[in-house]
């Protein structure tokens, strides 16, 4: 084929366009970089990550890893990251429960219940999260009774204005040697999955749904049997008991953590409710009708036909809500929970290393997001309906 003159060649023009774009970007980046350097030099600051090793000299209200004021800034940031992860993961689990219940309630045939769900979604989704968090913190948690008159919930759970107390475990000496059974239980889940897959590839029949219970029962069985067989118990229950002015033992959620958790769970739950509702409704009625007319009971039709299809529609937006919850945890600063953002702010203030701290912070959030997106993409590509 004849090669046209280069100034009219589409390929050349496209390459030129991209080159121009890169040049503009590079120029802009260079310009910004020059400005940053000049400005920093004027203020007598330099860019570097050495400050991470300096002692932090500030306390952090709550932490899941050991920390005190003499630890480094780097460690402080790590504490913040862990705090963020804890509230995010716990929040994700709880909000899924709340959201699914609310979503199903929305579709209930009981008028009152569905109105409740509609009101819940309508109010929560239309107001800013930060106001809801403040309401939870100032308006609810801090208004709870003092420790002496704690609100007692079944199962030794106590609600007070000093925090929420829950029963927890305490590790005994035997725990170290027993730990391995936890790993075995986890491995068994993977093993079961492999067995099912192998079985599936041999025969073309889907496995009966109730076999999926194996994922739950087998690990629990392993843990339980290993517990019985142990000569000494590796774990002991730790119930909060009111002694004097405070509760001893058990797990304590600070008021800040509790308010943040409940606020995030309720807020994100409203969005998940709508997603669940839309997902179930997206499966056309015709599917349910066809299933019923084949003789399946409503329960079977829902389980085998409606839910699998609904799940496909539900999972992608639901994972982005999970991500939103993790990102929204940064509002913790408004009520004093020391999450990654609030600690990063403190560090930036104290060291003046604004650029570095912001980079670290954004990288952390970005990693969380990308990791979640990756998981979602993997799931999506596996369950995508095969179409022409």
């Amino acid at each position, binding site marked *: *084929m*004849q*090669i*046209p003159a280069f100034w009219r*060649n*589409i*390929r050349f023009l496209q390459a030129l366009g991209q080159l121009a774009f890169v040049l503009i970007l590079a120029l802009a980046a260079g310009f910004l970089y020059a400005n940053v350097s000049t400005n920093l030099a004027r203020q007598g600051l330099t860019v570097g990550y050495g400050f991470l090793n300096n002692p932090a000299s500030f306390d952090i209200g709550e932490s899941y890893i050991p920390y005190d004021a003499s630890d480094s800034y780097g460690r402080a940031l790590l504490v913040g990251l862990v705090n963020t992860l804890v509230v995010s993961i716990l929040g994700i689990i709880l909000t899924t429960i709340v959201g699914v219940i609310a979503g199903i309630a929305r579709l209930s045939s009981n008028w009152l219940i569905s109105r409740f769900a509609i009101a819940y979604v309508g109010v929560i989704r239309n107001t800013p999260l930060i106001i809801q968090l403040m309401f939870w913190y100032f308006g609810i948690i801090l208004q709870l009774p003092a420790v002496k008159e704690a609100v007692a919930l079944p199962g030794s759970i106590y609600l007070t204005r000093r925090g929420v107390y829950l029963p927890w475990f305490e590790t005994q000496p035997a725990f170290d040697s027993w730990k391995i059974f936890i790993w075995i239980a986890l491995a068994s889940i993977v093993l079961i999955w492999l067995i099912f897959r192998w079985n599936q590839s041999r025969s073309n029949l889907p496995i009966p749904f109730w076999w999926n219970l194996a994922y739950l029962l087998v690990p629990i069985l392993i843990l339980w049997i290993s517990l019985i067989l142990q000569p000494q118990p590796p774990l002991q229950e730790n119930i909060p008991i009111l002694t004097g002015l405070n509760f001893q033992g058990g797990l304590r959620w600070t008021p800040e953590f509790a308010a943040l958790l409940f606020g995030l769970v309720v807020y994100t739950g409203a969005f998940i409710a709508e997603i669940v509702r839309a997902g179930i409704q997206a499966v056309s009625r015709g599917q349910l009708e066809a299933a019923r007319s084949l003789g399946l009971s409503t329960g079977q039709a829902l389980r085998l036909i409606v839910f699998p299809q609904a799940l496909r529609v539900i999972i992608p937006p639901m994972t982005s809500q999970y991500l939103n919850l993790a990102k929204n945890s940064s509002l913790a600063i408004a009520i004093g929970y020391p999450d990654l953002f609030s600690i990063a702010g403190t560090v930036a203030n104290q060291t003046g290393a604004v650029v570095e701290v912001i980079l670290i912070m954004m990288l952390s959030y970005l990693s969380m997001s990308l990791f979640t997106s990756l998981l979602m993409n993997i799931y999506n590509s596996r369950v995508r309906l095969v179409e022409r």
Partner: protein
Amino acid sequence: MKEADNSQDIIISHDVHKWFDNFHVLKGINLNVKRGEVVVIFGPSGSGKSTFIRCINRLEEHQKGQIIVDGVELTNDIRNIEAIRSEVGMVFQQFNLFPHLTVLQNVMLAPVWVRRSSKDQAGETAMQLLRRVGIPEQANKYPGQLSGGQQQRVAIARALAMQPKIMLFDEPTSALDPEMIKEVLDVMVELAKTGMTMLVVTHEMGFARAVASRMFFFDEGQIVESGTPDEIFKSPKEDRTKLFLSQILSH
């Protein structure tokens, strides 16, 4: 090596190959069209017929071989592509009218923006064309308000507004309800009689019989057989042609 153009041939395609990733969709097409000819291309779906005519106005890019339209070779040269596109009009299976513009605006759009006609002139020409295809009264309606047959006729008028030398038709009646096919075919027949060079991909054998100068049977990316309608219908040479004709003519 460029061959000496035959001044009669307005489209020359020589050993044209095209791949979609690894799929070899056009395997060496040699097809020449003379001025004023009406060429009908037919064949089973997936045989590459639509892909071929879409290569002629560069909606698809061929990777090997030559396509020369009215003396201009089709390459990566922008000027060539634009020149060819303004000489070649296309009518699509799905009409592809612009839903946010009225019928009249649809027809006027290209002349105003590409040929820089004045609005008045473009408007007049547009109305003439709408009269020619038989629906002048729909000028101020939106495409969504028209029937399929009417929409396709607007699409033909829109393509004609650029005064093309060649008209390409990509299965123009396949998306129409049966009762509307005739009105569109009538317009196409009238167009053929005015001497327009037409390259038509279609299953409508009645149309082919009436106005086609030549017919080409495509199968699996190659031209299996070609000839005048008489030759094709009365004495097809290849077995595949016979098989295909028996399948569609039995309707």
